[in-house]
């Protein structure tokens, strides 16, 4: 399982590939809390953008069986362990082929990535190898230029809610992994269009920070 996943990265995505030919998988996780060491994933939602189109039929949503019940996070996300929750092993088994070598996209991607790595570690995968785009960082780069001064950025302006508001994406289904992934995907679609206007046309342009 892990080997097959790792094999996909033997050949790197060409830097010259236009963005319109890239495959993105936009994801979001809901967790028991914000501590990477103690908390874990409760739900995973994702949807793909292929050829600049959000494809509804690629959307995924998984709920994970949880051994630990944290009252506080249940409160935040109102996730009640559903009947079809997967054991961790089965989740990882379906996750890796789904991710493939697509570009991973998430809002505040670092956290989701760390949570996914924590989930995959017990099965021998030490690192998620996919290229990663953070919609928050991308928005800052587009609005302030590539060499922005971090001290001048108010991070509150780059929350998912604030960005959806700014980019006129009606907010629905917040704090639901699939709902947030869908919002993030719509945000990415709009950001990529902005990026194109600023001359960011290829995979290389997109990944150069």
């Amino acid at each position, binding site marked *: 399982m892990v080997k097959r996943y790792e094999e996909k990265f033997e050949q790197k995505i060409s830097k010259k590939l236009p963005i319109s030919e890239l495959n993105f998988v936009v994801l979001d996780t809901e967790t028991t809390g914000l501590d990477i060491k103690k908390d874990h994933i409760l739900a995973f939602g994702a949807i793909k953008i292929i050829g600049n189109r959000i494809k509804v039929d690629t959307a995924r*949503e998984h709920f994970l069986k949880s051994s630990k019940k944290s009252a506080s996070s249940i409160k935040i996300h109102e996730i009640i362990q559903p009947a079809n929750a997967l054991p961790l092993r089965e989740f990882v088994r379906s996750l890796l082929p789904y991710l493939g070598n697509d570009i991973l996209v998430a809002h505040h991607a670092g956290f989701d990535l760390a949570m996914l790595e924590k989930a995959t570690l017990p099965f021998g995968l030490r690192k998620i190898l996919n290229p990663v785009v953070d919609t928050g960082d991308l928005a800052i780069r587009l609005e302030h230029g590539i060499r922005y001064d971090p001290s001048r950025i108010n991070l509150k302006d780059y929350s998912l809610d604030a960005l959806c508001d700014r980019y006129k994406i009606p907010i629905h289904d917040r704090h639901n992994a699939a*709902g947030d992934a869908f919002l993030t995907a719509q945000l990415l679609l709009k950001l990529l269009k902005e990026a194109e206007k600023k001359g960011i046309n290829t995979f290389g342009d997109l990944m150069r920070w």
Partner: protein
Amino acid sequence: MPNVIVNRVKEFLHRFPPFSFLSDQLLESVSREVELMYFSKGEYIFKKGNPASPHFFVLKEGSVYLTDEDSGKMVVKDYCDEGEVFGALALLGQRPYVLNSYVAEDTLLYAVPVAVFDKVLKENSEVSLYFAAGFAAGQVVVRTDLSQSQKARKLLRDASSDHGLSLFMEEGKLNFPTEVLSCQLGVTVGDAAKLMYEKGVGSIAILNQRGYPVGIITDKDLRNRLVAAGLPYTTKVEEIMTSPVITLHHQSDFPSIYLMMIKHRLHHLILTEDGTTDSKITGIVSDHDVFLSHGNSPAVLIHALMNTWNVQEMRGIRDRAESLLGYFLENEVAIDFVASIMSEINDVIIKRAILLAKKKLDKDFEEESKVPFCFLSLGSEGRQEQLLRTDLDNAIVFQDVPIDQLPRTKLYFETLAQEVIETLIACGYHPCPSEVMANNPDWCQPLSVWKSYFHDWVNLPQEEALMKATIFFDFRPVHGHKQLSEEMTAAIYRMVDQKPSFLSFLAKNALLNPPPMGFFKNFIVEKSGEHQDQFDIKLRAMMPLADAARILALSHSVSRVNNTFERFEKLAELEPQNASLYQEARSAYEIFLRLRALEGIASGTSGRYITPRSLGKLQRQLLKNAFSPIHKIQELLTVRFQTDYIRS
């Protein structure tokens, strides 16, 4: 697959036709396959001549113009805003795109794969009709087939809560006996009554030797013509029967049966195999059957009108007629039928008003009251198209009298007209603001003066004259000597024949109001690209068609047809090469008339001004499609009457 995402897509699509017609399950299967695309201003989604993409598009946010090049210039053919479906021609015909789609504002689209929709088209007749009828944006440019729109309206009727869907026609359900009690000529009334008693029916048809209907006897006839008249039971049926009988073809639709009974004030209508009295009886319809089928029947209202001289009561009945109208419109009864019913009711009121006035005046004008006259309805009422009590337009023509008698004769008719107008206003009609009414001395004239009016208008076709011609040429005799109005008609045709250029002026005048293109974001989109808040459906949609029908009918010397529907039907017969255009124009006129009446009832106004915001998506699309034949008819007028060569 996550439900939240699919549900979000579903929720949006469900708000707009044709997705609103889909079952939850089918809509879900479509929603699962949707793809979202984002375009920024200035981009093209597809260009004319591009091969069809395997998707069609639903606009989620933003706006798109469908454009075409006309001698190097980009011309907007259609506008798409939220919920608009476009790029669908490719879906149906697999043809290359016939228009460009230019992104006018940043736009988010739902792309629906043709593959998944093929199944929907096959399974859902409403959806396939939606596309066949040309409701998707850009389709109207390529083909308009309003007969499909008509069908679509009918079928799509229950499928959505969209207000637009209350525009459908339906025939009433009428139940009546097909086994008709009958007896031969020569039978005694006593025996006939026994048969009626045995069968428990209120009427018996009388047949001749060949078995064809020659008369009818009802309970009422037994009472009035036998018992009250003191005749013996051995009287033969032929002596008291009502004869001849009025018959209709046994496959007649409900509206014709209904109309026939109302026109002839029948209590019983006999249906026969071939519609004449020379064939076998197949059924009998009583006004009671009609009453049951409709609850509040026009026959009942007319009957009530015929039985009162009280103006307040007449007004009450006319108010009831208005609720009846609402009921007809909601139930999608054919509009020409509805229009003729309402005209019939209006006519009865006018006749009663005239009789009331005569009762009051005739004793003081003994000689004058014997002068033959005809009371004419003009304008929309003259065309039998007035559904609501809008402005009164009428006139009086009376026979020429010796010059010394003229002043007093004119006084009589002016006084009579004044009385009539007052009664009508008391019944809830509105006076004509430009005083085109019979109590105006100008419009209460002997035949010779009317002829000279027409002569002046035809020979000096200035703006004022043309405006009058459009109102006065649609006259219809309501009460009195029809021969007078027929002479007026004959005079008009003679004059127009002698001066055919008059028609060109009339045509030029009719082209002054080009219809708009359609709607966009609650705005009326004019050909020039201007916007306005309210839409004048009378001026911009109905008048151009009514004017065109009048001119074309005049050019063919079609007489005695002054209803716009009938004119177009007649024209379709006379010009087979343009038949489909005329049929479309007829359908379009029907759509406008119905919409105007619905708007009028809803807002308590004349319904002339429509707020696009209040219309549902489907209704707007329907209206937009209905504008299309107006353009084509106007082009036809331009070419045929060479209006470009006329200076006005």
